[in-house]
């Protein structure tokens, strides 16, 4: 079945296909329609799930933590300020090893109020122990949410599936629906051995002495590392079942590339057209789209980026006073490579600024011809 759907409605239907058992969520622009659609689906009896209405995102995540600890498959969705309000509980979900999946619609942080697309909301949650996926299309939102539950439940860590505010959340695209029976085979019922049980009580996350705390943190770190292989295997199996293959990164025309563009989300999907056009003109350029930001795909980046001379990274987030996070991390993983490629960092599209193909091409050309600085804040047309 194929339907024309917005990214928000796609996320809701994906949660339905994953047969989530508890949804606790609070509405926030531009995510609201995910929660609305799910409450509608549950109210109509099309999904056997508990919809818990809460007074804040902090409570939404707390309810998901309780549900997941009791062995339910839990889902929520949020954006921007809502995600920030959840921050404390994000650490709780990951530390307690609860495989919650959350859709986050990327939106700028206030002040000033701005509801448009920006990645500073989710990048700010980098070190909470959550895995993070960045989607380039509504189809990928559908497929990623289903895959996210499988990876999350295998390594017992939560996953945040990010979709760009408005560019995906409110844009309708044709979306292929996987068959429910096939999804059920791909994603069997979640039934952990250690779920909360009144007959056999235990505490989750009680005090741990330093040695035990360190041991558990190392275990979480290894789980994140191990997830890399599972992400690849899960993406490949999803491809065999449903015809759409996924990996931890998405390389595009990288094979003989001399100059590489690295980016995420919808900027990367626009960039594919730019790469095609530049290839037609004989430029040896390629694109590496980072799909999973945590765990960070360092081996995959080294494999592709180790063969090129120059790299252009476009970030839709900024660590104030430094540069975008993806730029920094790409540079970090390339430090040990000889000869080390030069990396140029570009900041684009924050607060919903448009990133048209011409801007992306200009960044790549400046990278090629030496006209780029180490860090480039492109606000063309604003007089900077």
């Amino acid at each position, binding site marked *: 079945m194929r339907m024309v759907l917005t990214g928000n409605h796609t996320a809701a239907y994906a949660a339905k296909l994953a047969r989530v058992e508890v949804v606790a969520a609070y509405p926030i622009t531009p995510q609201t329609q995910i929660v609305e659609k799910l409450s509608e689906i549950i109210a109509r009896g099309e999904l056997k799930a508990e919809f818990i209405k809460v007074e804040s995102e902090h409570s939404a995540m707390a309810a998901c933590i309780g549900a997941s600890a009791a062995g339910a498959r839990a889902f929520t969705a949020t954006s921007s300020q809502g995600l920030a309000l959840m921050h404390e509980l994000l650490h709780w979900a990951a*530390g*307690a*090893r609860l495989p919650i999946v959350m859709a986050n619609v990327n939106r700028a942080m206030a002040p000033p109020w701005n509801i448009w697309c920006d990645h500073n909301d989710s990048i700010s949650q980098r070190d909470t122990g959550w895995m993070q996926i960045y989607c380039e299309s509504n189809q990928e939102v559908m497929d990623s949410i289903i895959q996210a539950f499988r990876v999350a439940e295998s*390594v*017992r860590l939560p996953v945040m599936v990010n979709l760009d505010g408005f560019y995906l959340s409110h844009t309708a695209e044709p979306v292929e629906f996987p068959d429910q029976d096939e999804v059920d085979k791909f994603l069997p019922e979640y039934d952990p051995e*250690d779920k909360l049980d009144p007959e056999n*009580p*235990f*505490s*989750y*996350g*009680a*005090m*741990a002495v330093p040695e035990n705390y360190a*041991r*558990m943190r190392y*275990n979480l770190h*290894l*789980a994140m*590392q*191990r997830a890399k292989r599972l992400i690849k295997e899960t993406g490949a199996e999803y491809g065999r079942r449903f015809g759409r293959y996924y990996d931890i990164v998405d390389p595009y025309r990288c094979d003989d590339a001399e100059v590489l563009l690295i980016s995420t989300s919808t900027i990367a999907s626009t960039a594919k057209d730019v790469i095609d056009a530049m290839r037609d003109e004989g430029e040896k350029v390629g694109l590496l789209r980072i799909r999973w930001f945590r765990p960070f795909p360092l081996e995959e980046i080294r494999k592709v980026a180790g063969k090129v001379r120059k790299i252009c990274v476009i970030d839709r987030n900024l660590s104030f006073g430094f540069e975008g996070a993806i730029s920094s991390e790409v540079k970090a993983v390339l430090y040990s490579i000889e000869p080390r490629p030069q990396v140029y960092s570009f900041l684009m599209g924050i607060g919903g600024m448009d990133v048209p193909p011409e801007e992306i091409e200009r960044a790549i050309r400046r990278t090629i011809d030496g006209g780029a600085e180490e860090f480039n804040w492109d606000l063309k047309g604003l007089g900077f």
Partner: protein
Amino acid sequence: MDEGERMNEMKIIIPKSTGSMLINKTGSWRSSRPVIDERKCTGCLICWKFCPDACIEPGEKPKINLDYCKGCGICAEECPFDAIEMVREEK
């Protein structure tokens, strides 16, 4: 063993524990204890409802579990009959 091998042999550690709150006797944190005046107490159990640590055992008259009572004084504050007095712990 390198990190890759450790990763493959990894067993998931869930931070769960049984009985940790039985061992951890939080009553030792207390600087003052609630003392119930049996003559004033009517057994209404409002103190039992308010105790945030479930340290009051209900019955005809309430009893305080001093192994876990941290001495917050909420019971004394809420008692409508002034039947609970907070008395300083002596070392």
